[in-house]
């Protein structure tokens, strides 16, 4: 029930924030802050109350199932495991930041703004929680519309174009996923007469290779566009750079993560054989993304656009890791989702701070800010370093684990991905150089960060350091769910091994089986 409350609090908070504008112009901000904070506290409470040790057997911590459209086998299923929990923590943390950074930036239609903000968060929360494919698609789309409004109403000059592009890309890919969901639904239903969208039941569907491939591509379409993977990335730079700061932060920090989450949660366990077939290509796409994004990032002059392309590059690691199918890589991917959410979010926030002060995003107009705003400089430095993968910061753990994992799967692609780290250095340092070091062509007055801004930035620094130096709590939380996602693959491997040593182990197995049978009896 606590899961439902999380979503309800956000949605109700959103409506309330919208309506409260009439009573007092500041009220929406406080309501939004309060709603997200409440959710954050709930999530932290959930995390603390479930120590890693108890995660053992079943990865699921909390489950909720309410029939919704029983005629179609649609149930309102919310379930929480370690992976979802981590994603929720990230969601609410970034949500709080998003509310805080909009405190001064958003001046018109604040009520509606916060409505949209909270509903995006609600949609994302739903995506991370639901274990019913219909509901998943439902939330998947629900998070897009408010996002569209965030970009389209409060964005920068070219906002309409960006908003269209964002919406069309994500919708198009989402519809393909819907087709795949339906295909899976009918295949599963025709096999055993149980027509349902329940994730847990669909997991057991046996698919013909051809069908599995097609359905996988349907799911992939949505997730790869959202992630995004080159060549489906072209919505991202526009959307990120035109959105208001809160929008960019949510886009980079959370929306992209839903794609990664989808890959982990749905693509891997649903189509174990098809993904193995597709893995080299997927990893190739990842590497191309890493390098292509890095090259593009290097040439940008618009700060937010630059950071946007770095996201393309960083998300390449995600797909590289996901399709390596081992625990190192997947832990790396989970870490990457969190660390990238923080680091890129922080870079967008800094870009937002600068925009608020200078009213430009052009790094040609900036420079020499270290002298004027040393606090901002230090914080920017931390996150620039995070983005180039400096050890000691969260991104390093993520990227290193991913690469270690992907090395086991494919040497050459990993080599190229590692080269991406050099390119990352090039673009990251360019940010520092142009914004904080080199003198600017024109001299602007620039105030350093104020208390509210420090309140936003410092926790992020602390978190990214924590992730870099002691990531174990996060890793422990994710482990059971990652093993769950990988189960199908380990079975595959085991099967192959079994074929090889089947005779030797025949005896052993029969003993094991009898043991298993013995344990079954009391049940």
């Amino acid at each position, binding site marked *: 029930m606590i899961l439902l409350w999380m979503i309800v609090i956000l949605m109700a908070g959103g409506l309330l924030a919208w309506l409260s504008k009439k009573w007092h112009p500041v009220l929406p901000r406080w309501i939004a802050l309060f709603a997200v904070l409440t959710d954050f506290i709930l999530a932290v409470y959930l995390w603390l109350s479930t120590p890693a040790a108890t995660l053992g057997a079943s990865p699921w911590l909390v489950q909720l199932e309410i029939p919704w459209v029983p005629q179609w086998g649609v149930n309102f299923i919310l379930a929480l495991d370690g992976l979802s929990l981590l994603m929720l923590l990230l969601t609410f943390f970034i949500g709080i930041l998003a509310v805080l950074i909009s405190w001064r930036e958003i001046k018109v239609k604040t009520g509606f703004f916060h409505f949209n903000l909270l509903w995006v968060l609600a949609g994302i929360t739903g995506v991370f929680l639901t274990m019913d494919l219909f509901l998943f698609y439902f939330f998947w789309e629900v998070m897009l519309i408010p996002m569209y409004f965030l970009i389209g109403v409060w964005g920068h000059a070219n906002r309409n174009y960006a908003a269209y592009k964002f919406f069309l890309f994500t919708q198009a890919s989402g519809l393909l996923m819907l087709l795949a969901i339906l295909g899976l639904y009918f295949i599963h239903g025709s096999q055993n007469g149980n027509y349902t969208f329940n994730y847990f039941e669909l997991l057991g569907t046996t698919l013909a290779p051809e069908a599995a491939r097609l359905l996988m591509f349907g799911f992939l379409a949505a997730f790869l566009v959202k992630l995004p993977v080159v060549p489906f990335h072209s919505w991202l730079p526009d959307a990120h750079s035109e959105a208001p700061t809160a929008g960019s932060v949510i886009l980079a920090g959370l929306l992209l993560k839903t794609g990664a989450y989808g890959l982990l949660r749905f693509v891997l366990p649903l189509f174990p054989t098809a993904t193995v077939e597709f893995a080299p290509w997927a990893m190739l796409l990842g590497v191309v993304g890493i390098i292509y994004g890095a090259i593009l990032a290097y040439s940008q002059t618009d700060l937010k656009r630059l950071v946007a392309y770095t996201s393309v590059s960083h998300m390449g690691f995600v797909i590289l890791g996901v399709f390596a199918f081992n625990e190192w890589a997947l832990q790396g991917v989970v870490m990457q989702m969190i660390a990238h959410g923080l680091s890129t979010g922080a870079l967008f926030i800094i870009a937002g701070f600068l925009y608020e002060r200078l009213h430009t995003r052009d790094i040609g107009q900036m420079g020499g800010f270290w002298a004027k705003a040393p606090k901002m400089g230090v914080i920017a430095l931390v996150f620039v370093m995070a983005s180039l993968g400096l050890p000691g910061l969260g991104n390093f753990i993520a990227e290193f684990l991913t690469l270690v994992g992907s090395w086991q799967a494919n040497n050459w692609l990993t080599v190229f991905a590692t080269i991406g780290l050099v390119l990352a250095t090039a673009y990251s340092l360019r940010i520092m150089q142009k914004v904080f070091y080199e003198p600017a062509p024109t001299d602007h007055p620039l105030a350093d960060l104020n208390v509210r801004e420090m309140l936003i930035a410092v926790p992020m620094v602390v978190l990214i350091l924590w992730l870099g130096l002691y*990531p174990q709590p996060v890793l422990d939380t994710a482990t059971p769910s990652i093993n769950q996602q990988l189960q199908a693959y380990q079975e595959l491997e085991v099967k192959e091994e079994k074929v090889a040593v089947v005779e030797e182990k025949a005896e052993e197995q029969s003993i094991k089986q009898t043991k298993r049978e013995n344990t079954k009896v009391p049940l």
Partner: protein
Amino acid sequence: MENYIWLIPALPFLGSLLLILFGTRLSRTAVAILGVGSVGISALITILLGLQFLSEKPAFYHQEVWQWFSVAGFNPSIAFHLDALSTVFIFVITFVGFLIHLYSTAYMADDSDFPRFFACMNLFVGSMLKLVMADNLLLLYLGWEGVGLCSYLLIGFWYKEPANGYAARKAFIITRVGDTAMAIGLFILFQTFGTLNIQTILTEAPEVWSVGTQMAVLVGLLLLGGAVGKSGQLPLQTWLPDAMAGPTPVSALIHAATMVTAGVYLIARMYVIFDLAPVAQLAVAIVGAVTLLLAGFSALTQYDLKRVLAYSTISQIGYMFLALGVGAWSAGIFHFMIHAFFKALLFLCAGAIILALHHEQDMRKMGGLRKRMPVVFWTFLIGAASLAALPVITSGFYSKDQILWYTLAGPQGSIWLYMAGLAGAFITSVYTFRMVFMTFYGEEKTHVAHPPGKVITIPLVILAILSLVSGFIELPHNFAHVALFSGLMAPVLPGITANELLAANEWMFQLIAAVISLGGVFVAYLFYQKSPALLASIENSSFAMALHRFWFSGWGFDALYDNLFVRPYVFLANLNKRDIIDSFYTGLAQMAEGFHVMFSQTQSGVLRNYVAGIVVGAIMILTISLLL
């Protein structure tokens, strides 16, 4: 005492953290106390620990601070492993580091970014300590990149000058290239051994790999890649001369004494791999030999005092690589230590000169400083003598001679490598004394504003003494035969035995080395002191000028890389700034728009056309129904 190991890197980190957080609000004195004090206490602990180590003679001390993370059998820790090798390194780092910090309080006294400087320096010391104390390669990598970051921050310390920023980025990016190779090496090691714990790898490697295994060679070469990046060896040496853009204490600490020798440390640390991979080890030797020559020639031609020293550093590290490459592990490390003393000394002297001359670095504008700055002159001279390996009295002689000796007489030695080493020694003493003569002799060209104070001279004197006496802990067989250092190293690094045939005549080779070094001094004296006209006549020939330009530019490596990698990359990036893939999607949109225009032509508003539309539809339907 060994329970306090963690304090050694922790104190500088703490100092750095405090300086970052509160630096701007503290007084200069407080900043200085914090910055110098943290390193000082570290140094104190190190010395105490070192004494304990020498008296107890354990194989190593080990301390795990916390488990970093643990994923599916991959469990690196934040843990420190202190054996003789790392003890030598942390001694040099903390002790020399302390002296340089002390020196900096005077050197940077007028800088407005005083706290930032010490924050970065402390951070560097902490990272460097972590690098050498790490018990696993991942933690080592953390320190490795951490020192890279500090190097970047300190090279670009005076950030308002774009050239400094450029040099800083160049340093970071080029070393990152090496780091990438090293990272791949780590992947292979992890895949093979299932761990990155150094000791485990070292013990298991001989069991898993036989000598000359392809994998071992690959790993060796990849680690070498990391090492050449960090240590400024061929082919990734180009960043180091530019790194002199940073404040001089930075050059002394990072780009002479400590960070650039991280590559030496890495190779020595992983010596088992190189033992298993003779090809890789040979590559180390060749890289060292070639680098020491190339850098030596370049050093000959430089006018900027610090650039001479930079090239000299590259060249001296070349010697260390050469030593490691021929299996003279202990000799390489010994040279590292000695080099740290005298090169830090030289840089600090150079800093004193530069400070006194209002940041003038061009040697052509110096001269006659002998009288003006006697302390600096004498200490510089000692450092130069050590660098040039003047026989008997300098420690540089003993360390370099040991390398040269094993290059020839060691089991992996070769006459070619030896010749390269000898040639390098000659060049070294030429450019060293060229420096001495140009700077301290001749007429005074720039006025000395204020002679250096005590805080500057005390470190110089201490380092000068060390440069003179520290060589005596390791003397050749035929020359009192003191083997304190190699004895210390023996449990960690394998020893080396010289060819017996040659060993009988060791004195002859020592003589050759001594003559070569003195000969170099003489040549320098000839050209730069006695008859500069001779030099001018040689320099004026067109061939010499071309050669000079070529050497001056560091053998054209910068231009080569610029044309081969940087320009094409930037060109490509700018070419694709608007993202070619995006135009595919815009094309789709335009296509849809085109279709719209086409279709809307049919909506002409004319009734008859609409009728015709229905008729066409009817005909179509009837045709289909009749045909099918």
